[in-house]
Every structure is written in C-alpha cells, then in structure tokens.
C-alpha cells in the first residue's frame, strides 16, 4: 500500500489503509458476534432479533471487543519480526510436543487412568453426556479423521453410515418389522453392522471416487439426506418416522458369567472406552503402515503416487470404507445403548457437526480428533447448565459454522495439529503438493 492515491478523498485514503480495513473487519466481526448471541427474531417480527442485539446497550461490549481484537492484531503486526522469530523457533520444523517416547507413554497412561477413574465420581446426567454426547462422537470423529485427515477426502454424509450401523443392529437383534433368520446378541451384531456400513461405503465410494474429489462431497451430502428419506418412507422395513424401539442392550452369557449392560450409562462408558482405545491403537498402526504411507503419498501428489505404482482408487475407497465402518460401529453401539433409532435424529447437520470436531481438533491427528470431539461436545452441555452470554442450545450450528470458516482462515491445521499434515498445508500454500486428495482429474476433461 505504498502507492496510496494522493488525489483521493480522505475516505478513499481511509479505505486503502490496511489498518483501517482491518479495524473495520474486526468491528464488523464484533457486530456479527452480537447478532449471533443476541435474542431470536420471529416470523412475525423478523427484525426484532437484529434490533434487539444491535440497538441495545450490549452491542457496546461487542464493539469494544472488536476494537481490542484490532489493537491486539495491530500490536502483533508492529512487532511482527520479533513475533515471527519466536514463532519460527516453535514451528519451523514441526516437532512433537513430547519428544521422549517414554514420557509420551506415561502421559497417555495417565490420561487413560483419569478416563477410567474420573467418570465414576460424576452424577448420572454427566455420565449420560459422557456416553451419548462425548464417547460416541469421539468414536465418530476418529473414524471421519481417517477420511478427511488421512486420505484428504471430504465426506459430508458421514451420519448415513451411522444410520446404516444402527438399523443393521436393529435388524439382527430382531427389533425391525422385518425379521432376520435368527436373532443375535448385540455383541455378535457388531461385525455385521460394521460390514453393512463398509459395504455401503464401498458401493457409494467406488464409482464416485474415480471422479474429481469434490464430487464425493456433494454425493455424500445427498446420500446423507437420502438415507433419512428412505428410513422415513420404508415404513414396512424400518418402522418409518416413529423409529424403531426395543433394540436390546449388550449382555454377556458365557462360561457362567451373566452380565447385562442395562440402562445405566457408566457400564456403557467403560465398554465404549475399551472400543475407542482399541480403534485408536488400530488407526495409529494403520497411519504408520504401508496403507498410511500410501494415503500420505496420494495427499501430497496424486499423479506422482499413481505413477509410483500406488493404486489410488483402491486406497481412497479403503479410507472411505474404513471411515464408514467406524461410523456404522458407533451407530450400532448408540442404538443398543438408547435401544432406539429415529430417522429424524439422523440429520445432515450431524455430519457437519462431526466434521467440525475433526477440523477443530486437527485433521489427521488422533489426539486432535479425541480432544476436539471431547471439548466441542462437552462445552454446549456445560453452557446449557451454566448459561453464559445468552447461549441457546438451538444456535449451536451458527457457532459451529462460524468456527469452520474461522479455523480455515486462521488455523487450518487444527488445535492439536498432526505434524505431517501441518507441514503439508504449509507446503501446499507455497505451491508444493496438494494436501488433499481432491485434485484428481482436475484438468479440463472435455
């Protein structure tokens, strides 16, 4: 902005000033935040939401917030060279947070011990939140992390596979209007639910993944919607809009041991914890295996990967199917826990929610997916009990949508970034590689 127009008016000079524009953006951001947290409008008075949040004393607080933000950014830029020298030291070669392998093992064990001991001290409300809101979503986030983080694909209908898992659990345990040849204990239904979800993933993924990557996103978006319509419409098969009731709980009858998981949340929490730890181990080894390295290669440069003999389509379908089966697994567990599935619960919004969990935590980072899911799922529940700034539960998707945009602009690698993923994004921004698997056949085809 050195060549600022000399003849321009004061207004024009103000507009061309970087500082002024940034200040304007910050204040507008504050006002948007004011509307987001403000009162609701209604169909009879559609402007009341805006007037209630913008022409009210509280707006001053948000303008001040915007100005403070501007001040912080400006100060940061003033001292940019010092800040950069410091942050270069931190981020130049992405290092592990805990470099020593033994220290890491101890930390992980400590976290696990905490996860085992702590929930027993909670009351039943928080125990239920821990299973229905956090545990299941942690599992879902780890699964979607394989698709979005490892393979660099975008799946916007992830909850559809959750539905398939849940409905196959209902089928094999005999809760659906159509009956299976024999009824199974939920434990034996797990592999069948996983296989059903995986098959759906292959059937949907195989044709779509041959094409440009962004087609997958829109096909899965449509698929998520279609599954809901199908589940609602096929009254004779799925029980229709009322949903299915009476999916049995997990139980063990083996070698004289009889145990039923029942309606309490805590036993389910430990079951889920065990499964999550298993899946985490599995995905950790997968990430560092031949398959994981193939995904890295595809992400960084699809053409180079293809010419090095990697069957790109196979590995993409594999990632998609692994993600799908994890979602089916989670659906199966949740269906058995609440012994109920309803099409109205399986909205496309939920798929977006899980995407937010993965993006917030850090694409391609297992600790990121776990922490992201745990924090973002815990926070709304906490705010529901302790309301702050007029937070309303039904507004949650406004915040999540804004969070996605903000994360993509300022921190695309997430709060606990995967070292490799972070480096890739940095490289891609300097024109090396792609950092996603969306660019296949992106050239003009016709």
């Amino acid at each position, binding site marked *: 902005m050195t060549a600022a127009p000399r003849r321009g008016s004061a207004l024009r000079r103000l507009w061309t000033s970087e500082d002024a524009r940034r200040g304007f953006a910050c204040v507008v951001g504050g006002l948007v935040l004011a*509307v*987001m947290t403000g009162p609701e*409008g*209604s*169909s*009879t008075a*559609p402007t009341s*939401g*805006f007037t209630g949040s913008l022409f009210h004393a509280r707006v001053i607080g948000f303008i001040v917030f915007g100005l403070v933000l501007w001040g912080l950014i400006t100060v940061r830029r003033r001292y940019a060279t010092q800040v950069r020298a410091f942050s270069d030291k931190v981020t130049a070669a992405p290092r592990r947070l805990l470099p020593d392998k033994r220290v890491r093992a101890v930390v992980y064990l400590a976290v696990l011990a905490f996860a085992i001991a702590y929930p027993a001290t909670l009351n039943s409300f928080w125990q239920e939140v821990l299973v229905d809101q956090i545990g299941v979503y942690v599992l879902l986030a780890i699964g979607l992390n394989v698709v*979005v983080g490892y393979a*660099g694909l*975008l799946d*916007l209908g992830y909850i559809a596979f959750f539905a398939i898992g849940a409905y196959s659990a209902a089928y094999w345990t005999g809760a659906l209007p159509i009956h299976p040849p024999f009824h199974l204990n939920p434990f034996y239904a797990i592999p069948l639910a996983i296989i059903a979800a995986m098959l759906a993933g292959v059937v949907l993924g195989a*044709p*779509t993944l041959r*094409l440009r*990557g*962004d*087609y997958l*996103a*829109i*096909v899965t*978006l*449509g*698929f998520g*919607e*279609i599954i809901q*319509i*199908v589940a*609602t*419409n096929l009254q004779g098969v799925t029980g229709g809009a009322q949903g299915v009731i009476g999916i049995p709980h997990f139980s063990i009858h083996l070698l004289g041991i009889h145990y039923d998981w029942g309606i309490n949340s805590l036993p389910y929490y430990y079951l889920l914890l065990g499964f999550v730890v298993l899946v985490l181990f599995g995905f950790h080894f997968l990430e560092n295996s031949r398959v994981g390295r193939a995904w890295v290669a595809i992400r960084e440069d699809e053409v180079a990967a293809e010419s090095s003999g990697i069957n790109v389509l196979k590995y993409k379908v594999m990632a998609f199917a692994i993600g799908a089966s994890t979602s089916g697994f989670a659906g199966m567990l949740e269906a058995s826990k609440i012994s109920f599935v309803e099409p109205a619960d399986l909205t496309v*919004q939920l798929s977006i929610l899980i*995407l*937010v969990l993965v*993006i917030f935590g850090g694409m391609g980072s297992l600790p990121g997916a776990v922490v992201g899911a745990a924090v973002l799922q815990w926070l709304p529940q906490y705010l529901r009990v302790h309301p702050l700034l007029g937070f309303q539960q039904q*507004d949650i*998707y*406004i915040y*999540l*949508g*804004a*969070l*996605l*945009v903000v*994360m*993509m*602009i300022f921190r*695309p690698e997430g709060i606990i970034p995967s070292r490799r993923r972070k480096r890739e*994004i940095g490289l*891609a*921004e300097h024109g090396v590689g*792609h*950092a*996603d698997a*969306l*660019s296949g056949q*992106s050239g*003009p*085809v*016709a």
Partner: protein
Amino acid sequence: MCFTQNFWNLVVSGLADGFLYALIAIGYTLVYGVLQLINFAHSEVFMSGGFASYFILNAAIGTSQPHGIGSLAFLALGTVGGGLGGALVAFLLERVAYRPLRRRNAPRLAFLISAIGASYFIYNIAGKEFGRNALEIPSPFTNGPVFSIFGATVQTYYVVIAVSAVIMLVLVDRVVAMTRLGKGIRAVAQDAETASLMGVNIDRVISQTFIIGGILGGAAGFLFGLNAGVVYTMGFTPALKAFTAAVLGGIGNIRGAMIGGLLLGIVENLGVACTQASWRDVVAFGILVLVLLVRPTGILGEQLGRAA
C-alpha cells in the same frame, strides 16, 4: 407406463421446476468455471434471495391484490429484490469465506470446508432471525389457468417462471459471450494465471462471477418462494438438484447448465409419477449418481471458456 397418463401435465410442471434448477445451476457452473470449486454455500444464496424478495414485496404489496400492469411491476420488483439479496450474500461469501484462503493459496479441501461452514452459518442465522416457519410471499398476481397445450393446463405461475427465467438465461448467456466482463470470466476460466498476466484483475472477475451467480440464484429463490413460501431450510434440496443439473449438462458450461436443469426437471417429474411424491429427492439423487457413473463430463462437456 406410469407417466404416459399425465405426460404433458408432468412435462409442464417439470419445465417449471427445470427453469428454476437452470437458474441456480448457472451459479454453480460459473463459480466452478473460474475457481474449479463447488460453491457449497450457493443454497444459502438462493435462500437469501427468497427472503429479500419476501421483505420487499411484503412492504410493497401489503394486503392489496395487484392486477394488470401492477402485477408485472411487482413481479419485476420481487425478481430484482431477490437478485440483489442473492448478489449481496454471494459477494460477502466470496469476500469472507473464499478470498482469504485464495490469498494464502490454501488447499482445495480448505475451500470446501470453509464454504460448508459459511453455508451452515447463514442457514442457521436465518432460522434464528426469521423464525423457523415458512413465510408466504404476498402474491403479485392471481394464479389460474392461462392456456392449455396437448390437454395440459398451464398456470399463470408457470408462465411467470418460464418468461422471467428465459429472459435471465438469455441475458446471462449474452453477457458472458459478448461483454468485456464475460470476456474476463472466460479468460480466467481458461487460464487464470495467463489471464492475470494479460492484465485481467482476477479478484474483480471472481467477485463479479459470484455476483452474477448470486443474482440468478436469488431471483430463483423469489420464483421458488412464490409458490412454496420462504423458510430457512428452503435452499438445501433445490441446490442439490441444481448441482445435479449442472453436472448433467457439463459443469463449467453455461448452456449445459440450462439444458441440464430443464432435463432434470422433466425427468424428475416423470420419475415421481412412477413412485410417490415422498421419493422425489431420491429420484433426483439417483440421476446424479447415474450421470457420474455413465458420463461424468455431462451432456455438453465441461469448460466454460469453450462452450459459452
């Protein structure tokens, strides 16, 4: 056959749907042409146009019942209002959700995620501010049969959609083919880097592309809302179908989007005649998957620069 009975009725209603899909599909196709990206938030551009025209017509018409020249004037007002609403949202969308990422040369995945986030933000904030029930746009005309063709009666509403859509489609086709702005769009679509070396201001062209797509999408939101009312969820399904239409015709190709839209509208209505109304969206989605399987480049092929 199940659809032979009411064939011409289905074709007429299919064409009406098809014109709307074509208008929305142009937005996808133009943005795809210049950025090689699916604009996931286009559904919300469509919705914003619907709401903008609702507020304008509510203030302008009130409880009166316009007829004759008045109807035409209000229709024009609604279309322009919807178009401006859509254009404003599309412009802001490009500024906030796309441009910062473009500056950084971010991976394509980041653009898609950012667009999805913006879409959910706009969608849910509209639900919060404007209520979660459908609002009825005061009708600028009295609906009724106008003429019949092969035994199918054509309603006023269908005539309104067809006439205004044809005008807009012809206009956008000519703008892209003949004006300086269109030349810029085609240049960026063919090769953005070379275009910028030749002195094309890429930022401005991309902004204008979003605005053109937003005008058509917003106007389609008005035409759609005339019949179905406006509600914050109205964008999702029509936009998904319009995307199908864009792929069917060949994404990145303007005339392809028009043909794809009309074709999809007719096929969808004929298909629904063979099933039930509740399977309507499934039919359209089936067409999308089928097209991607059989001819992913669409009927007319891709590339904005060549076909327009």
